[in-house]
């Protein structure tokens, strides 16, 4: 038995954290993440979730408190967005390097200035090298499911790395969606208790985050890199088991009419659902268009991505963040790098759009696809094109 309810996605995420039976939540409220942590505070205050809620004075402190809590072996959750994620930045590296399985929901938000509370992906792209596992969701159900999966992945003894679950601020956080909640007993079966192997313990002292002289630092970083790359197998295993247990299957690279299509569009996050409608419209007109969506951003799913695009001639990529002065959006730039040494590869056309809450409609995606195809014929002197800017 499952329960299907209409509920705001932020509230649903907090309920998922409750179902995961988190021990500690340390968080600072920031738009558009606020409702997640507000509702968690309510759940703790009402006695519905037996957890320690630590109201901190900043996101830097929030992540620092999460380190301490996770180091004791407590199941630890936080959430943030935009500037808050950036204020956490240095501590994010410490969480992954100390191999602490913190789970964080990131309500993706544009970075200042000008001040924007609205959504894009500039916050998540700025933290892509912090060593966290990064999962991107497209709707509320995926957010709930992947919060539960994130705890299992992070705490797996073969992983022991922190996980961010990225959902688009406002587009997802503030909408009411139909969510199917699993049974608590099924979640309990799916998510074993957190057993951190070397927790802080006065009877068996350990030192964490210690000094790493030049003779050790390279080895430490390589061990971390090997672990993050290897975590992909556990992510896939977790999603497979989630699919068997709850009937919803997730993949690192999600496909939509992409097999055999000569022209592919690639998106991340909730814009993918609008892009699907655009792809449907164009396919009805007889155009050979497919859609590929990246679900797993770190560790980057090289094999699955190359496999998904190998038969295409054109790959049109939409980034929702600018890498200033660089080769285009971060996603397009990484996809190009992933394909560069392949014998058979599509031509990659890079667009940046949807910045700071600017919508891209179905017609907008059709424009992007048509313009992308045109660029492959005419060529372009630019590294990328920005979509929707007023000249």
């Amino acid at each position, binding site marked *: 038995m499952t329960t299907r309810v209409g509920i705001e996605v932020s509230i649903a995420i907090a309920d998922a954290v409750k179902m995961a039976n988190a021990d500690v939540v340390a968080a600072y409220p920031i738009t558009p993440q606020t409702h997640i942590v507000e509702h968690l505070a309510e759940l703790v205050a009402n006695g519905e979730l037996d957890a320690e809620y630590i109201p901190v004075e900043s996101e830097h402190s929030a992540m620092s408190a999460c380190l301490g809590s996770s180091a004791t072996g407590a199941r630890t959750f936080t959430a943030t967005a935009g500037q808050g994620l950036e204020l956490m930045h240095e501590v994010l590296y410490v969480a992954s*390097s100390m191999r602490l399985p913190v789970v964080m929901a990131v309500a993706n938000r544009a970075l200042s200035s000008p001040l924007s509370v609205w959504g894009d992906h500039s916050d998540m792209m700025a933290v892509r090298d912090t060593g966290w596992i990064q999962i991107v969701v497209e709707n509320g159900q995926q957010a709930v499911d992947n919060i539960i999966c994130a705890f299992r992945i992070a705490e797996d003894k073969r992983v022991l790395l922190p996980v961010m679950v990225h959902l688009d601020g406002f587009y997802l956080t503030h909408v009411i969606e139909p969510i199917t909640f699993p049974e608590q007993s099924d979640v309990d079966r799916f998510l074993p208790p957190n057993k951190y192997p070397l927790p802080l313990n006065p009877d068996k002292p350990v030192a964490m985050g210690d000094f790493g002289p030049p*003779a050790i630092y390279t080895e430490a970083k390589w061990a971390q890199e090997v672990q993050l790359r290897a975590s992909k197998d556990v992510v896939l295993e977790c999603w497979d088991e989630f699919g068997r247990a709850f009937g919803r299957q997730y993949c690192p690279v999600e496909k939509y009419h992409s097999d055999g299509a000569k022209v592919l569009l690639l998106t991340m996050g909730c814009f993918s659902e609008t892009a699907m409608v655009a792809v449907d419209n164009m396919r009805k007109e007889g155009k050979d268009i497919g859609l590929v969506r990246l679900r797993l951003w770190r560790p980057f799913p090289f094999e699955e991505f190359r496999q998904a695009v190998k038969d295409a001639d054109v790959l049109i990529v939409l980034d929702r963040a600018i890498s200033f002065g660089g080769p285009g959006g971060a996603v397009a730039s990484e996809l190009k790098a992933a394909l560069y040494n392949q014998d058979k590869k599509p031509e990659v056309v890079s667009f940046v759009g949807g910045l700071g809450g600017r919508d891209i409609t179905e017609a907008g995606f059709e424009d992007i696809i048509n313009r992308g195809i045109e660029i492959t014929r005419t060529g372009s002197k630019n590294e990328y094109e920005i979509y929707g800017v007023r000249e």
Partner: protein
Amino acid sequence: MAKSESELTWKDLEIGCIVTEPGSARQYETGAWRSQRPTYDFSKCIKCGICQLFCPEGCIEQNQDGHFEANLFYCKGCGICARECWTRVITMVDEEE
């Protein structure tokens, strides 16, 4: 620690480089950082211990004769003891000498 730090491979490290042996910082030879070392004329020493109080490394102890002397395994050669000593017992000399 069975292997020295320069022999450890990435596979030898504990998860997150966690140190499981309490007090192992004691094995770290901070004296290797030193470019000057303290030398002593103990005939002037009044055993007041001011050098020990000021030593930021906490590496000064009384020797068998009761004179205060730095443990060169840890002494970083900062020279604060030499500056603070009332009776000018301590002279810093370059390590090459």
